[in-house]
């Protein structure tokens, strides 16, 4: 057990270092959600005057999207880093050690979870500076860190699965627009009850990203909303399970060692 923990811890540290030491990976994680938040908050502020809009602060409403965008970057960064390891042969170096398959992926994803919590903390700080009010208080901070970490594990594992399947960083990066569409076709800009276009409302209702966003958002706007939180965690956990199954399948193909 201690060997397993050492292996996982070692690989988690390496995974975090690899991301933190690449400014071109860190820059979009920190600034892209900030820029989008600023654009949306200034352009859509008037939406708060719509009857039924849940808050007077659009920043408090929109900050939730930053956590999801952070998750998307986890997908790209984790997948790209793993694909680079495959392309460079580093993956084979790891495979030549007594490392277990489960340690390899667990190490990667523990690193992703830690980074996910870290970036969630950064987004909370950004929101605080911009005027977002976290109604759930200190307990809400912990829940956001946990949900942020779990969502990043799910997205990061999807990136791992894509990297293991294709072995190509370019292929992993090609997934970004696809997943970004999911954000726009969700309740990211307006609450679902105000989405009047029929098809859009239907898509947003079926889109699991809506529930993930609403989980984060509920902590800012309502404080403690059990239903929204339950749904948010269920989506993050479901995404993680599906993605980990995909990783396990892809790993069997990629790592054929005896």
């Amino acid at each position, binding site marked *: 057990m201690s060997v397993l923990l050492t292996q996982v811890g070692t690989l988690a540290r390496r995974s975090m270092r690899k991301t933190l030491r690449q400014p071109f990976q860190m820059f979009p994680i920190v600034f892209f959600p900030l820029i989008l938040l600023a654009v949306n908050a200034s352009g859509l502020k008037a939406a708060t005057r719509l009857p039924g809009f849940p808050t007077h602060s659009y920043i408090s409403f929109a900050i939730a999207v930053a956590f999801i965008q952070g998750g998307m970057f986890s997908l790209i960064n984790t997948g790209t880093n793993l694909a680079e390891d495959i392309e460079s042969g580093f*993956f084979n170096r790891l495979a030549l050690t007594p490392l277990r398959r489960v340690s390899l992926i667990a190490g990667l994803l523990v690193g992703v979870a830690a980074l996910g919590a870290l970036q969630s903390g950064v987004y909370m700080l950004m929101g605080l500076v911009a005027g977002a009010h976290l109604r759930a208080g200190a307990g809400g901070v912990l829940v956001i860190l946990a949900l942020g970490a779990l969502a990043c594990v799910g997205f990061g594992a999807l990136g791992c699965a894509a990297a293991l399947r294709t*072995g190509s960083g370019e292929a992993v990066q090609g997934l970004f627009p696809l997943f970004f569409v999911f954000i726009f076709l969700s309740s990211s800009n307006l609450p679902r009850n105000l989405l009047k276009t029929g098809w859009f409302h239907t898509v947003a209702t079926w889109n699991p990203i809506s529930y993930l966003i609403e989980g984060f958002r509920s902590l800012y706007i309502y404080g403690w909303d059990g239903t929204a939180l339950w749904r948010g965690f269920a989506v993050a956990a479901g995404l993680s399970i599906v993605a980990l199954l995909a990783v396990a399948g892809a790993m069997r193909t990629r790592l054929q060692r005896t």
Partner: protein
Amino acid sequence: MSHMSAASEQATRAEGARRDGHNGIEVAGLVRDFKGGVRAVDGIDLRVAPGEIYGFLGPNGAGKSTTVLMLTTLLPPTAGSARVAGLDVVREGAAVRRAIGASLQESALDPYLTGREHMRLQSALHGLARAEGERRGRELLERVGLTDAADRKVGGYSGGMKRRLDLGLALVHGPRLLFLDEPTTGLDPQSRAALWDEVRRLAGDGVTVFLTTQYLEEADVLADRVGIIDRGRIVAEGTPAQLKAAIGRPSVEAVPADPGERERLAGALARFGEPAAASPGAAAVRLPQGVGDLAEIVRALDSEGLAIADLRLHQPTLDDVFLAKTGRSLEGAGEEQDEEPAGRNAQAESKRGDAQTDAGAHASAGAGSEAGGERERAADGSAGA
């Protein structure tokens, strides 16, 4: 629980193999097929004695890397058997991995980690205690001459430094058997010579070395025995001297000072042996009695009054061996074989399940290392490596 005990049993077996000195390789009828019916390795047999440097020579795509991947447990064979360090590569993969060290093609390093961090990572993954890992890391960094660069990110290392670090990493857990897959490809002559010295030192310490190379000189200079592989089959095996002696005698080539004297020169030389292929403007004969005829030839040319601009003795090379066994020269044979989906690309095809993506990945990795070469050499010089 049963998994743990199986792992522990394999670790014990690996340790036992080391202790008992079973650090050789025995391969029988090893085959590896890939998607589309491509046979990259076609029933090879070989035996490497403990403590030996075995050179596995062949052009690109001949099956060298696929063989290494199978012997290092990263790729299951389609047929045949292989025992490495006394352990079966299929049934005892984990134990084999504990017993061997490997430095595979290209320096598989993380450019964002330092040399010391690589050592820590490798020793932790091999289960060394933290203090032991630190001590071993320091020792190996010193051994491969990277102590001064230990805290620099590997992305700034030269090709030679990366290769040396790669070698050091393969030695972290004290393996008795080392696989080096084209360790000097792309290195400048100084870095290559430094790596050869280190390989010799390791062999001197009793480590068995299985070295693949496409360089004739490397196999000739470094290997105790050489196996030549072509299109997945071993076409010749023996010591470099045995292989060269088996294919013929040396030849002598002379260039007349007056180009018009070439025919007369050829006639004079013909008394000493059969005509051999010669450079334009020169004449050559193969010497049935070996180099002992050389003095007699010089005297004969002098007595004939033939002024000679250049006189050369050609000893048979491993390329001559390859030519004799395959009908092709090793130089350039790789280009022909590269066009076939064999060897490493085919291996990658199998591993990734997508031949086209693989070919692209390899191409881009190769291009990257080429492009970085000049900058890296400059860095190597500045580091005094």
